[in-house]
């Protein structure tokens, strides 16, 4: 996939960064493919830079229910970034069905089983994403255990993004649609690098 064609609305200086994140997300979906044991392909990808304040609007406003998988990214000394994968609840349920090989619509709520499945999605996607980033930046990066949350978009995101607002106002957003031949899901990756990661 030619990511350069997909990149709009970003500063020239950031193109490299956006491209790297796009490839990283591609790699993460490849990981999901291996987890599911069948081909999962990226259908569409849209990368943009968004003001942190506007992020809940991407998911239907701050009061809309979302499911988020959050990972912290550890580099050399401190945390070097954060990765959040956000799904609308029905989409996350569909993803659980896909992975557990159940008919679409089986999962209707988030119990331990579904939470743990989505946590595993976070683990796999995080590791594959970071492998790619490690190769590019030459830094050893590893993910924290995943945290799976379901609540109002504003609440989940301000809890995860509050610390980021201490040093920047914008973040990379990678909107993706991916799936197997018969089922597709859309998810949004929020990737927030610390300044130390960008230096790599």
């Amino acid at each position, binding site marked *: 996939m030619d990511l350069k064609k997909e990149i709009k609305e970003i500063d020239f200086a950031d193109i490299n960064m956006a491209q790297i994140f796009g490839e990283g997300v591609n790699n993460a979906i490849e990981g999901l493919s291996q987890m599911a044991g069948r081909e999962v392909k990226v259908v569409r990808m849209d990368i943009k830079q968004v003001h*942190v*304040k506007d992020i*809940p609007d991407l998911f239907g*406003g*701050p*009061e809309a*229910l979302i499911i988020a998988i*959050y990972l*912290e990214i550890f580099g050399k000394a401190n*945390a070097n970034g*954060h990765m959040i994968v956000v799904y609308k609840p029905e989409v996350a349920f569909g993803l659980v069905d896909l992975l557990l090989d159940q008919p679409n619509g089986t999962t209707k709520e988030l119990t331990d089983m579904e939470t743990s499945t989505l946590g595993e999605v976070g683990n796999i996607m995080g590791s594959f994403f970071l492998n790619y980033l490690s190769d590019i930046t030459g830094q050893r990066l590893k993910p*924290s*255990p*995943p*945290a*799976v*949350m379901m*609540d*109002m*978009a*504003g*609440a*989940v*995101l*301000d*809890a*995860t993004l*509050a*610390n980021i*607002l*201490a*040093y*920047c*106002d914008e973040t990379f957003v990678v909107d993706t649609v991916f799936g197997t031949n018969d089922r597709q899901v859309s998810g949004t990756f929020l990737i927030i690098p610390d300044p130390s990661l960008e230096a790599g």
Partner: protein
Amino acid sequence: MAVVFKEPAASERELYVVGMGELVVTDSPDAVLSCIGLGSCIAVCAYDSQEKIGGMAHIVLPHNTGLNGVNPAKFADTAVPLLINEMIKKGGIRSRLIVKIAGGAQMTLAPGLRDTFKTGERNIAQVLLVLQRERIKPAAADTGGNIGRTVRMYVKTGHVTVKTAYGTAKEL
């Protein structure tokens, strides 16, 4: 007898969304100030019942680190005094202010994460400390826990409501 709170008709309310790091003080009677989807953030509401002035601050972090501008409304240590001063500028009187706070949730208890999710706790502590410095005791508080909240203040009456993702609005 306590006045039972009843949400005013849609035609009699004008919603102001107080976004992250924003602060609104108004004496417009139809105004409904609202912080939507608070996680670790805190809504500090102040009300002067005689002058019918309402104010709300949507606080994101406890301290200003100075690394990202100087928006005083974003940080507990500067937002609380700012809110009080703005209330006084509008004609409010410090001793009359009724202050209510809500928010400061810890959205996940997952193990292995560092301090990211302690922001809520730190926000609550700092807001309470600054209020104490300002010699104001909060009249009501709904803080902590691990669910998000939406907070509204009806300026006409000073009522404050809190709603969670799965619940209905309750009066604070």
